[in-house]
Every structure is written in structure tokens, then in C-alpha cells.
């Protein structure tokens, strides 16, 4: 029972994160607008919401655009149902930016925001708007309850943060364990430490594959391609390659002592280089599609709000524990095998 508490603990954390990660509702948000261009003068658009309550909260509803410091309220709008609003905006030409941000506010959903919702179509004749008086009256605070942030394009897939990212944390942790065992092996020439290092690398590869596969699926339906030329993604692929090479090296030397020593040296060298590639380097450049996800300092940029944090950190801890548990099982099995081989 003694060594069991952390396994039960991490299992509970994983169950908690899967449960809440799948069942907690997504906050209301604006999904799409159609058309996405505004002519000068009046344009009528359809605003599609997600999990929103446009009809239920029609009394407290306010719809407006911002552009720079300027605010354009909807000239008129008509609620179709809970997820659709037909709105007419009237804009004029002298504005600072080409893109308008869209806001919808009501008492049930709070403030919903779609950045860069509309592009100004500058071809039209400039007209002064019919209605420019300020329309934003007191915005009522909405009590939305527990929910995940609704990001444009991501929508429900924000939940993948709880399943994709922890696998990378688990991979790094278990590779670090492997690194540590390699050092122990080289210092004290203990073959059991080398076997542990190999087993840890094996479990690390499992989580690397999980990270790559889940990342590819997520990327396909967010950025539109299975593989994008992203530094973090390439870094992950390199990490995987390094550990595959590690196993090639192990199996290419027949003499056990020598194979263990070579593998230990390569593991230490490779781990440092991998750390450099996966953790340090992607942060130095700007051309990463990952908007600060994955335990780097840009975390708050990503609007990882408190609700998400409440599930994300337990998920990371839980999966780290799970990876250690799987590693332990693998290692114990391997020890049995070695004992059986000796007899």
C-alpha cells in the first residue's frame, strides 16, 4: 500500500481532468459572421453565436463594433433565435484600422468578443452614419458559472489543451528520468540503471507519439494541415528521432556492457540537445503557430483563464504521474525478465 498513494492520486487527477474537460460547458461566444466585410454605409450581417442566449436575453442585449478607439453600435438588429442575430451596421470611411472587432453583450452570456470580425470594404462611397450617438449603457455583469473560454477558430477544441499538452510534459519528465538514470549508470557502472534509462526512454517515446498524433489531429482542424512548419512541432519530431536513434544504437552493439555505456553517453548528449530544441529554441523565434501553449512564459498571452487552469494543472500532474507509473511497471517487468534470463 505504501507506494500506491501517488498512483491513486494521479489516477484521480486524470479522471478529474477527463471528466471536467469533457463535461464542463464552453462559454458563450461568437462563432462566425456572414458576410465578413462591411461596406461604408449600411451592411446587414448574420452573427452566429455558440452556446449563446441571444433570444433569452434579448432585453439586455447590446451589439457593437470597435475600431481603434471608436465604437460603432449596431444601427438596428433583430434576434432570430438564441444563436443568430441579424444586425445592420452603419460605418464611415475615416477610421484607423481596416478590421473591426465585434462585441455582443447580454445579461446571461456576459460580453462575447470576436476580434477582427469584419474587414472594411473601402470601395464604397463614404456616407455619414445615420446614428452615431453612444449606445453603450451600463453593461450588466453576467454570472456564467464554470466554463472554458470560447476562442475564435478553436471553439470546443480548447479542451484538447487538457489532453495534448500534458503528454508533452509527461514526455519531458520521463526523458529527464531516463537522463538521470544514464548519469547514475555512467558514474557507478550499474547495469540496472541503464535498463531503467532504456525503459524510461521507451515510455517517453510512447508519450512523444501521443503528443505528435494528437497534435496533428488538432492542427489539421485548426490550421488546416496535418503538419505545419512550426518550430515546436519540428522540435518534437527531432526529439522523437533522437530517441529512436538511441534504440538503434542500443541494438547495434551486441556486447551488453559496451552497449549500455554507449547508450548512456548518447542519452546524456541527446537529452541536453533535445531540451535545447524543444524548450529553449522555439521561444526565441516569433514564427511559431503555438500561441504560447505548453508551459512557456507566454502562457498568460493565451488567455489561459482561471477555469481552464483549474483543470489544466491537475491534468499535467496526473499525466506525469501516469507516465511514471507506466515506467515503473515497464521497469519491474524488465527486471523480472533479466532475473529470468540469468537463471
Amino acid at each position, binding site marked *: 500500500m505504501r507506494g500506491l498513494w501517488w498512483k491513486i492520486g494521479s489516477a484521480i487527477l486524470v479522471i478529474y481532468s477527463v471528466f471536467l474537460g469533457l463535461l464542463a460547458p464552453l462559454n458563450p461566444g461568437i462563432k462566425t459572421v456572414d458576410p465578413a466585410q462591411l461596406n461604408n454605409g449600411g451592411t446587414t450581417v448574420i452573427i452566429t453565436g455558440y452556446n449563446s442566449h441571444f433570444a433569452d436575453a434579448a432585453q439586455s442585449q447590446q451589439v457593437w463594433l470597435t475600431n481603434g478607439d471608436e465604437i460603432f453600435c449596431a444601427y438596428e438588429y433583430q434576434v432570430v433565435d438564441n444563436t443568430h442575430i441579424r444586425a445592420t451596421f452603419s460605418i464611415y470611411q475615416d477610421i484607423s484600422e481596416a478590421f473591426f472587432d465585434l462585441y455582443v453583450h447580454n445579461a446571461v452570456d456576459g460580453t462575447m468578443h470576436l476580434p477582427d470580425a469584419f474587414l472594411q470594404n473601402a470601395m464604397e462611397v463614404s456616407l455619414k452614419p445615420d446614428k452615431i450617438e453612444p449606445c453603450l449603457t451600463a453593461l450588466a455583469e453576467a454570472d456564467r458559472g464554470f466554463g472554458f473560454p470560447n476562442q475564435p477558430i478553436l471553439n470546443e477544441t480548447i479542451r484538447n489543451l487538457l489532453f495534448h499538452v500534458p503528454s508533452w510534459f509527461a514526455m519531458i519528465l520521463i526523458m529527464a528520468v531516463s537522463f538521470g538514470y544514464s548519469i547514475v549508470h*555512467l558514474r557507478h557502472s550499474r547495469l540496472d540503471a541503464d535498463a531503467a534509462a532504456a525503459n524510461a526512454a521507451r515510455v517517453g517515446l510512447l508519450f512523444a507519439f501521443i503528443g505528435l498524433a494528437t497534435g496533428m489531429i488538432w492542427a489539421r482542424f485548426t490550421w488546416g494541415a496535418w503538419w505545419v512548419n512550426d518550430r515546436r512541432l*519540428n*522540435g518534437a519530431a*527531432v526529439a522523437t*528521432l*533522437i530517441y529512436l*536513434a538511441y534504440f*538503434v*544504437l542500443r541494438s*547495434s*552493439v551486441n556486447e551488453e556492457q*559496451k552497449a549500455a*555505456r*554507449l547508450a*548512456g*553517453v*548518447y542519452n*546524456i*548528449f*541527446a537529452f*541536453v*540537445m533535445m531540451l*535545447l*530544441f524543444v524548450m529553449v*529554441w522555439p521561444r*526565441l523565434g516569433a514564427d511559431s503557430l503555438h500561441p504560447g501553449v505548453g508551459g512557456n512564459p507566454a502562457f498568460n498571452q493565451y488567455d489561459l483563464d482561471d477555469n481552464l487552469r483549474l483543470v489544466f494543472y491537475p491534468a499535467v500532474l496526473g499525466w506525469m504521474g501516469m507516465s511514471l507509473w507506466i515506467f515503473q511497471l515497464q521497469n519491474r517487468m524488465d527486471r523480472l525478465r533479466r532475473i529470468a534470463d540469468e537463471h
Partner: protein
Amino acid sequence: MWPEVWAIFRKDMKLEMRQSHALGSVLLYILSSVFVAYLAFKRIGDVPTWNALFWIIVLFAAFNAAARSFALESSGRRLYLYTLASPQSVILAKIIYNACILLVMVSFGLLIFSGLLGTDVLREANGFALMGVVMLGALGLSVQLSLVSALAATADQNLGLMAVLGLPIILPFLLILMRLSKNVLDGLAWSVNASYVWQLIAITVLSVALSYILFPYLWRE
């Protein structure tokens, strides 16, 4: 320790001179791959292509050169060295030796590459900056590949294992290097490139340190 390093380095250099076909073969390797590239492209006026092709050729030549540095030693001579010198001086001597060989190779490669494939892309580049990048690249590649070469040689394996082991390790360095050299070819200012240069130097120093620490464990036989 440094006299020991110097002695091993001198010994390697002498061996190299005695069997001059060895260095010649690597230079010939560069010459022929550049010639193939010339036949395929005739003239490259496009900076990214020029840059990528140049570094790919250099990369494989570097693998070839580094693979020889340990494979040349017969196991008898290795045993002899083992009794005479400390492993730290052996790896330092090998790194210096590899760096010298690679510097010669890269300079030669740059010369014939720009000669055959056209110097159109070099117009914007600062000559000193380009030479600096090429030197830095050669230095870093040789440092990282020295340890990998020692690994492959200890495993009694050929170039194949070395490519498998070395490529993923060298990739971070190589990608930063290619980005830097592209920037230099485009004539970007030092302020843009400084961070890349520091990264390259950091990786090189780190690799030297790791080789210094790890090599004794390989040498122990």
C-alpha cells in the same frame, strides 16, 4: 594537459599528411557533389536555395570527415593512445583536428560552390560576416560530430550509424546556422543576427563541455 593535446593533434596531422589521399578524398567528395549540383542547377540566383544546398553539401562532407577521425585509428593504436594519454586530451585534440579539417573543407567548398553556381547571391552579403558564419558553422559542426564519431567508432559501425545518431543532434545547430547564413546573404544587420550568433556559440561551447565530460566513459574499455 595542453602539451598532450598538442602532441596528439600533431600526430593526427602527420598521419593525415602521410596519407594525403584521405584529405584529398574528402575534398574530392565536396568537388564532385558541388559539380553534381552545378549540372543540376547550372546557376542559382535564389538565396534560400543557394544557402540550403551549400549547407547540405557541407553537412555531408562534415559527416564524412568526422567519421574518419576515429575510424582511422586501429584498435591497437587506440590501446596505445589509451595507455599514454588522458581521454580528455584525446577528445580535445580530436575536436581541434576535426575543426581544422572542416575549416579547410568549408573554405574550399565555399570557393568552388560560389565559383560554379554563381556569385549572384553574394552581392548583398558582407564578405567578412559570411566568412565568420561559415567558420562558426564549421567549428560547431566539427565539435558536435566529434563525439558522435567517437560513439560510432566505439560501436564498430560505419557512416550509417553515424548519420542516424548525428543528424537529430545536429539539427538544432544546423537550422539556426542556415537561418543565420541566409540572413547574412540577404545582408541583414548585425543587430538582427546577434542572437543567432550567440545561440550558435552557446551550443558549441555546451557541446565541447559535454564531450569533455562524456568521452572518458567511451574511452574506458
